């Protein structure tokens, strides 16, 4: 039984059909790449999975449960975590607080009111910040970060929720080749306990870290399979030659 299974997802915005029966299946500990031209519906599919958009039609199941009607909160509690394409950190809070906020999300109200997990989480916050090379900015407001640094922070926040399934929408936007490579390295270790869906335009990067790929085009799945299968796929090569 796969960890995540989205089938027949349809999303209509007014006249536009952004998703037209798209499907996505992600197994345990699988890194899954989602690629496709601009406007093909990748972000929309991610949002439908995380609950930011309500699909017009279709079904999403996660850890053997139908979560189509779940709110984002419930999905997050079930073990999903999303990094948006457009960074949305909490601007006036410090980096430390941003991460702590993500880390403590699952604590009970009682624990929160009496700050019972604070000491425990402190180390984790600092470790995360250190990993993402933000430790020295820990007490600056998140708004004072450059765009790329905010991307780092968002990835860290998404990871801090300790998800079973991590959804990353273009995490390496605005990063140089080298920075991408480091991001890839940071993501590798989570494979032990977590699956990943990642949207990316950089095929080299995707190829390096993903096990399987799904290609979207105009809201439909064009192909899905292992990296080498996709690379060999005629239809996929086709769209990569076609101009948008």
């Amino acid at each position, binding site marked *: 039984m796969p960890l995540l299974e989205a089938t027949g997802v349809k999303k209509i915005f007014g006249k536009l059909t952004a998703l037209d029966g798209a499907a996505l299946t992600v197994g345990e500990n699988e890194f899954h790449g989602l690629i496709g031209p601009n406007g093909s519906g990748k972000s929309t599919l991610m949002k439908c999975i995380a609950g930011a958009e309500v699909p017009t039609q279709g079904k999403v199941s996660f850890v053997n449960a139908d979560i189509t009607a779940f709110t984002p909160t419930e999905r997050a509690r079930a073990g999903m975590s999303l990094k948006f394409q457009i960074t949305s950190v*909490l601007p006036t809070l410090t980096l430390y607080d941003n991460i702590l*906020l993500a880390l403590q999300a699952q604590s009970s109200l009682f624990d929160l009111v009496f700050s019972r997990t604070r*000491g425990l989480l402190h180390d984790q916050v600092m470790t995360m910040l250190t990993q993402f*090379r933000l430790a020295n900015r*820990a*007490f600056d407001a998140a708004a004072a970060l450059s765009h790329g640094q905010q991307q780092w922070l968002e990835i860290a926040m998404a990871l801090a929720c300790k998800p079973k399934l991590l959804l990353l929408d273009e995490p390496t936007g605005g990063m140089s080749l080298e920075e991408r490579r480091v991001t890839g390295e940071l993501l590798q270790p989570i494979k032990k306990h977590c699956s990943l869906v990642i949207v990316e335009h950089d095929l080299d990067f995707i190829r390096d870290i993903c096990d399987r790929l799904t290609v979207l085009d105009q809201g439909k799945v064009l192909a899905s399979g292992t990296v080498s299968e996709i690379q060999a796929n005629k239809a996929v090569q086709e769209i990569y030659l076609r101009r948008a």
Partner: protein
Amino acid sequence: MPKAIGAVKQAVPAEISGEQNVAMVEHGSAGQAGSARKILPIVEGVVLVAALLAPLVLQDYLTVFATRVIILALFALSFDLVWGYAGIMSFGQALFFGSAGYGVALLARDLDITNIFLVLPAGTMIGLTFALLLGGFLLLGRHPSSVIFVSLGTLTGSYAADRLARGWYYLGGQNGIPSISSMTLGSYEFSEGPPFYYLVLGLLVVVYLLCRFLVRSQFGLALAGLRENEQRIAFFGYKAQHLKAIIFAIGGAVAGLAGSLYAFHEGFVWPNMVGVVVSTQVVLYVLFGGSGTLIGAVIGAVIVEGVSFWLSDNYREVWPIILGVLLLLVILFRPLGLISFVLGERERVGSFGGKSRKTAKEKRDAAP
């Protein structure tokens, strides 16, 4: 948390900390916050001492006036809690204040209940209940509620309550309920004067400390996240709307406590007390003093009330205009309120990570 500090030192390998930006950015905010840490308790201490000594130096009628101001400060605290920390714009805070006032007034009038241990909890519960009802309607639901919606919704609630009170004969209509008997403790009657003052001050201190504890806790951090971006933290798994409703209800309870004290102290309740005028007044106190600091709310209430009192004595015909000008000047030049004269932005917003802050700074200073 000494253990934590040790941990940081291990957790930050030297080659990574101080990697970049260290040389180029002289981060003012951290340093500022460091000193602000010390300022807030000083401000709180000064205010407390001043409040404790006040009745000794003030004339009788001024002590009575000060009691009233402290009750209003308690009321202001309730608003700061919901707006300053959770970002819920309650333009109808008077609804909870006033309905509790009316509630205890009715208890005293119709049931002859004036025992302090009954009326104050009753007032608090009334505030809590009304806040839960209104908050439940405005804050919960499918659509996340915008600040403007909540502010107009609460405003409307307060407006409608005012209308209702004016029209409802049982509540005395426009004339309100006069001549409420004094609050009692056994056979002792709390009439206006120093004992009432210290009672109210004591309650204010207790509530203040509770609020302070709450907003400095991890729960407070969740509130801050809520204020910044409710939808975002929902994706972390917070039940954002529940948090909002909870803090709104707590705010309502505090307002209710203040309202019941007010009713007994002033000896009457009237429709304005649930209405828009008083609702706006409390917003004024908090923004004037500086929202999101708790102490700012207290200071704001004291100064606004004090200044109006003084102005109405000395510039009898034009004092509302002068008050307006003063307000405008403060808002223009101190948009974060009077408290921002002494407290830095970081302290106002609040932040966590406790003592490790210093560690990080040391690290940075130590870096080449």
